[in-house]
């Protein structure tokens, strides 16, 4: 089936070329970072994780959100999602691939990465995260490929694939839970030390991931003959709306606990992110944009007129995705380091090379996504013609 990715229109090849250009620029920057060390980034002793780990955390959510189409289709036999399930699975594949690339980009000694396997350490959450992410990557490639092959041959998927599908459902929840545990189990980092972090991660993931999937469906409808269908998209909108509202609810719970208890450690980071702490509020504009975009998006999802029109729906999805990306892809990780354990406030500004590497990894992820979607849609278009 891979040959389907090798034939395409000029527009397809143009898009591939753009992605390859960004990947090349990212690779060049990575060579620089590899030779100099991570000092080439904006990270420091106090803010020791930056955009790489933040993107990783955000993308684990996008990966996990694949379950939002897999579960209704395979567990509840919800036929409307039959056409887009493969899109959800392949989005998960691309996202987990990006996660793994971001982790590698963040390692001080990337050549030693396999030490995690050579010296397995079950008391480290990172060890478990490595396991759940790689297994999830395998499950989605495997299930997606087997089901797609069956579709191409016009036969029902083999029965033995079912256990893999069923395992992939709780597994999706596990990847984001374990990723939340990376943060939620650290003493002295008050912003992360909250039992609600894992559910909050899942809620924002199940809002942001399907929002991206809607956007992808709308784009695919324009550039190919494949239409996910109004009903499937509207069902995704329902999922996104509920998840986004639950996420807002969770965020408000954090605010209540921090400000009503009035415990300084619990308020500090929220102050820093949303209002400024001791006059320093590097991320305040970002977090306010995130809040405003999130509110506008939710209103647009709730109002039938804006939800049903494709152009306004697309805008709402972009706003929500961007809002959640700021919240998790910037605020959560970087904010958690402020104030430092010595209660110092250190600003963090990603360097040029750091941004180029980040864009390069995103481009690589979209490259994987494009190739996988090209194959999947090629198979589906073949069926439509015959």
């Amino acid at each position, binding site marked *: 089936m891979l040959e389907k990715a090798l034939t395409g229109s000029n527009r397809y090849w143009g898009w591939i070329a753009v992605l390859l250009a960004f990947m090349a620029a990212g690779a060049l920057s990575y060579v620089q970072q590899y030779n*100099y*060390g*991570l*000092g*080439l980034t904006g*990270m*420091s*002793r*106090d803010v*020791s*994780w930056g955009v790489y780990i933040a993107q990783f955390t955000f993308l684990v959510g996008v990966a996990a959100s694949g379950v939002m189409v897999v579960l209704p289709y395979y567990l509840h036999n919800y036929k409307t999602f039959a056409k887009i399930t493969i899109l959800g699975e392949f989005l998960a594949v691309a996202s987990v691939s990006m996660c793994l690339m971001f*982790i590698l980009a*963040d*390692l*001080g*000694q*990337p050549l*030693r*990465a396999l*030490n*995690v396997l*050579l*010296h397995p*350490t*079950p*008391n*480290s*959450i*990172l*060890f478990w995260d*490595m396991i759940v992410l790689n297994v999830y990557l395998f499950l989605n490639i495997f299930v997606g490929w087997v089901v797609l092959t069956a579709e191409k041959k016009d036969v029902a998927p083999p029965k033995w694939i079912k256990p893999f599908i069923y395992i992939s459902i709780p597994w999706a929840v596990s990847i984001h839970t374990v990723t939340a545990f*990376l*943060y939620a189990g*650290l*003493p*002295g*980092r008050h912003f992360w030390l909250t039992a609600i972090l894992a559910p909050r991660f899942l809620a924002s993931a199940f809002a942001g991931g399907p929002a991206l999937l809607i956007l992808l469906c709308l784009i695919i409808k324009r550039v190919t003959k494949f239409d996910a269908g109004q009903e499937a998209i509207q069902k995704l909108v329902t999922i996104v709306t509920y998840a986004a509202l639950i996420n807002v609810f969770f965020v408000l719970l954090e605010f209540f606990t921090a400000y009503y208890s009035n415990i300084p*450690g619990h308020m500090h980071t929220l102050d820093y992110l949303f209002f400024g702490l001791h006059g320093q509020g590097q991320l305040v504009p970002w977090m306010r944009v995130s809040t405003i975009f999130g509110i506008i998006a939710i209103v647009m999802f709730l109002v039938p007129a804006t939800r049903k029109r494709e152009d306004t729906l697309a805008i709402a999805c972009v706003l929500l995705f961007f809002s959640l990306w700021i919240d998790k892809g910037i605020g959560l990780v970087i904010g*958690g*380091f402020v104030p*430092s*354990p*010595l*209660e*110092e406030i*250190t600003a963090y500004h990603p360097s040029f090379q750091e941004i180029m590497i980040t864009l390069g990894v995103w481009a690589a992820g979209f490259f994987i996504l494009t190739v996988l979607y090209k194959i999947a849609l090629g198979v589906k278009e073949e069926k439509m013609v015959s």
Partner: protein
Amino acid sequence: MDIKRRQFLKIAGLSTIAGLGAPAAFNLLLKGESSPVSFASSGSSPEASQEAAPTGVRLGMVIDQNVFDAYRGLAQKCITACHTVHNVPKFDNPKDEIKWIFEVPYEKAFTAKSHYHKNEQLHDSSFPVLCNHCDNPPCVRACPTKATFKRKDGIVAMDYHRCIGCRFCMAACPYGMRSFNWRDPRPFIDKTTYNKEFPTRMRGVVEKCNFCVERLAKGLQPACVEACGNSGAMVFGDMNDPHSEIRKKLAENFTIQRKPSLGTTPSVFYII
């Protein structure tokens, strides 16, 4: 019906075994080591579990801030001694900075303490801070490769050759005592004082105070303690040895630890 009952019994039996085994497995997971002591003491109160391991060697340090206040400049002597003996590079910018022991004002060392019109000593003092060599170290729990590990004598040590530079330990340390080699440290080591007997590090690994484990092996005191001479500013030794000097110091003085509420049980104590 019979089959159903048999199945039920099977499941019930299996889940009982799982239930009995789970706490033990969980304990193993949390500690990262199996210790019979933790099982024996699991019934005791949470306060009791905050105490140091009662048996074996547990190395610790008492810092007498009164002495440091009396001899200004003594802390700087300790810092220089430590950073020289361990080939710690000197960077001029805070972004690349590496430090094993350094001075901070009271509010930064003891963040949770509250005062109203605090006394003058707290105003002017600066406190030496270093790795606390916690009895329950979060950094060891976080490390995915055992590059950071706790020795039987209580020292939290590091294997620079195994560290992958993920910096999970830096996020885990609630004291901010870990540094990362953001770039090649070797050009920034003072050539005139270079110590051939201690390894230099490469870029991309984490480092921190090691309680001078390499000097203890030779029967020497830690470099910072040695720099204090017999001023009594720093006392180092086995806190479980009833005849040790540190034990005497702990028994005679009111001491405090940094952030005790986090349950890490630091091995560095301060007399203020």
